[in-house]
């Protein structure tokens, strides 16, 4: 449980904050391993030829792989750090993916992260940190948007 001094003014100062852009490349080996671990035997996630025959640039990432890209790019703790919280002190509360273009092995993605919202719930015992991510591919296309809710249990000090 986090003992920190949080307040509405801090929330207001952080909502809308955008972090520096990041770049991440999709490794074919990582896509294959990820697909294997979630039991996804689809050939478009394993076999480049099959993926190309299906109209993709190369093997495609499973639907939740975008979250991995954000983690690999070191994005998971940026907003938390602004709150004085570490990722170990949070729970992954909710996640949403909006898909625009497939993520394929070899793609070089440019991403950005922002704080969408910060709000307390359950009488101030939980803080909901909502962050947004967008990933654009090397063709300049928006590939993926994610909205993630991290939940921080609070041990509130007297204000």
């Amino acid at each position, binding site marked *: 449980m986090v003992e920190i001094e949080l307040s509405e003014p801090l929330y207001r100062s952080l909502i809308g904050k955008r972090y520096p852009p990041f770049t991440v490349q999709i490794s074919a080996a990582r896509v294959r391993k990820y697909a294997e671990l979630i*039991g*996804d035997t689809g050939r478009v996630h394993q076999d480049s030829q099959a993926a190309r025959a299906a109209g993709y640039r190369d093997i495609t990432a499973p639907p939740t792989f975008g979250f991995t890209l954000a983690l690999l790019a070191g994005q*998971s703790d940026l907003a938390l750090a602004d709150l004085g919280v570490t990722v170990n002190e949070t729970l992954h509360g909710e996640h949403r*993916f909006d898909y625009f273009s497939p993520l394929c092995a070899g793609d070089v993605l440019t991403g950005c992260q922002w704080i969408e919202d910060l709000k307390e719930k359950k009488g101030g015992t939980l803080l909901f940190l909502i962050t947004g991510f967008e990933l654009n591919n090397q063709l300049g*296309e928006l590939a993926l948007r994610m909205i993630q809710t991290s939940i921080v249990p609070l041990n509130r000090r007297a204000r």
Partner: protein
Amino acid sequence: MNLERKWAIGDTVFLAVPELLDSKRIAAFGEVCGDSSPTHLTDAAAHAANYPRAIAHGILGMAFCGRMIEQEFHDYKLLTLQARFVAMTFHGDTLSGFGTIEAIDTETKNMRLSLIVSNQRETIVLRGTATLSELGAKGSGGRQQ
């Protein structure tokens, strides 16, 4: 896989097999997805963070849902996938899940699914939704945009 199937509201699809979250799988998943949090690896680290024991990655249940959708709705493209992780999952849990078609747009043929994932104690650990568009339907964009 349902290549020719016509879908209707109320149709339900299931995860093919219950998914065991053993320690080896969780550790390997953490490594491949870049989540090095020790709370996913040892009970001691989990206790230190006020969790009852080592927790699995919530996103794993969501990944199983994504896999199920891709396998069952072969002629559809995933537009959105959303999940609330309503209970923690732990080492040794076995997850089962299903999706139910809640709505089909008569014009676009887009479908909306509800998603449920439960553990071996029949506790719901994930509630979610997905929206899909039929490949080749107007505005679907096909597989590669």
